[in-house]
């Protein structure tokens, strides 16, 4: 794909690197599919009350009804419509994905920028701290934080976010080191810019490519981990329509009513695939060296 794009870039007038990246991104077939899938889910999340056929908590009378025309995904152990609960569940999972990424991104970027830019003992201090945090597999780190804050969906968002801080910090630090010696950074310094301005205005603007890619993939990952924690009973509590919790509740009815546990799992799968497709598309957009497979 990169090959058939080359002539287009050569014919048209030079454009900004950002627009070139976006162009390559949109030319990526997987990314377009991912964007469509994500758009569908966003519409469902926003329009849930209008799209869902039933109230997600309404008891329809008959429990564990197999999928039919009236209840596309069947009904659950209490007789609630599974499809409606899946649609409402998208609100929680998408919120969780975006909010928790925010909790990881902001501290991670600040730490990484500071470590990479200042170097010396600031770097040593932050790097050792990052190393220590990376000594925990990330779900374990999230578990520790939940143990402190207590179970709950908001605490899951915070825990999943914070557990990604070391990875963000490591990524940003590495990128900063790779651009720090560039002439434009030196120039910015010579002209008398403040450290903060150089960090955010000059360095950060030039390293956000890999960061955007990682963040996109991280949204999907956060949704997965968050649902897993809810499955364990550490996140959303009943009667919330949350995908992980729904699978957990459907687990004991798996043999005779598989749709209760299966439907929310398929929903997660499609949302996370969407983020992964978009992430890979962005990667090929920001890094022309990466060939589309």
């Amino acid at each position, binding site marked *: 794909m990169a090959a058939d794009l080359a002539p287009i870039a050569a014919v048209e007038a030079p454009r900004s690197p950002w627009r070139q990246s976006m162009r390559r991104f949109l030319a990526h077939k997987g990314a377009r599919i991912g964007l469509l899938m994500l758009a569908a889910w966003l519409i469902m999340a926003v329009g849930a009350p209008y799209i869902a056929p039933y109230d997600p908590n309404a008891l329809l009378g008959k429990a564990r009804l197999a999928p039919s025309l009236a209840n596309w995904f069947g009904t659950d152990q209490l007789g609630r419509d599974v499809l409606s609960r899946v649609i409402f569940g998208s609100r929680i999972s998408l919120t969780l994905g975006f909010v928790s990424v925010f909790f990881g991104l902001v501290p991670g970027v600040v730490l990484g920028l500071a470590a990479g830019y200042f170097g010396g003992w600031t770097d040593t201090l932050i790097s*050792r*701290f990052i*190393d*220590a*945090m990376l*000594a*925990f*597999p*990330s*779900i*374990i780190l999230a*578990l*520790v*934080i*939940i*143990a*402190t804050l207590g*179970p709950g969906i908001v605490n899951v968002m915070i825990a999943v976010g914070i557990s990604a801080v070391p990875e963000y910090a490591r990524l940003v630090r590495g990128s900063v080191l790779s651009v720090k010696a560039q002439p434009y950074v030196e120039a910015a310094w010579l002209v008398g810019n403040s450290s903060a301005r150089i960090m955010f205005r000059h360095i950060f603007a030039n390293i956000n490519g890999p960061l955007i890619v990682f963040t996109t993939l991280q949204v*999907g990952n956060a949704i*997965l981990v968050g*649902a*897993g924690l809810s*499955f*364990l*009973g*550490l996140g959303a509590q009943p009667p919330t329509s949350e995908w*992980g919790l729904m*699978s*957990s509740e459907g*687990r004991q009815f*798996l*043999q005779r009513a*598989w749709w209760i*546990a*299966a439907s929310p*799992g398929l929903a*997660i*799968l499609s949302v*996370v*695939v969407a983020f*992964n*497709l978009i992430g890979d598309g962005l990667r090929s957009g920001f890094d022309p060296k990466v060939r589309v*497979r």
Partner: protein
Amino acid sequence: MQRYVLGRIVQLIPVLLLVSLIVFLIMHALPGDPAVLMLAGAEGGMTSPERLAELREQMGLNDPLAMQYWHFVSGAVTGDLGNSIRFREPVLTMILSRLDSTVELALFGLLCSLVIGVPLGLLAAARQGGWIDAICMSLSYLGASIPVYWLGLVMIFVFAFNLGWFPASGGTTWNSLVLPSLSLGLINAGLVARLMRSSMIEVQGEDYMRTGRAKGLSPGLLLRRHGLKNALIPVVTILGLQFGNMLAGTVVTETVFSRPGVGRLVVSAILSKDYPLVQGAVLFLATVYVTVNLIVDITYAWLDPRIRYGR
């Protein structure tokens, strides 16, 4: 080589100290008072202030924070992680009695991911753009996008309930290990396959491969002796990471398959607010993870001499 190994072990100490500090600080930012919890749990909520004060003194909760940390670390070094509030048993004993089940699961999961991933990656590299390549790609997407608990449920539904080949949960026999390790392994197999594929493709373009071909080595020998050994290096480096994924995965997988392991212990400890148990088990898991990564690094240096002589 010895020097390198020794150096790496020494570097481990500050990391472990920091890990223990992080665990300690997070756990001590807790809102609840462990002494109150302990009395509420064990003595039916009969919390007289005198008894509470006595217990706090006994548990060292009145000491300054630094002192408490010192007790925690010096205890941990000698294998004393304190006692569980709920079970009144030494934390280390509880972990060790469940450790073999967890290690078994993690190792077999790792094995599954390698047995599926490595050949798939090699075949995909041999026939780029073919159907095996497509399977390899889809598997890595699925692996990165499927919730591990859900894959476990699918496995139970298909192989336990419908085909009846393996037990759905519990059990200590070998066949109860198949479904949990397969679900853990499949999640990571795609990653292994993708890495194996790109590494093999890269190695095939190296000078030493051309030299091998030029001097008339048979393609099979060339691939085994020079190709595979070099292509495996990146795969070995992510083994530590993979093992971490497996350990983390056991937390969820053990619950899905009702296996008595360390992961499930941590989850139930969190739900019952058994803080010494959470603290000890997490420190233990982190130590195992760091140690495994060290072993991986050493293996890496052994496979690739450039690393130990480098710098």
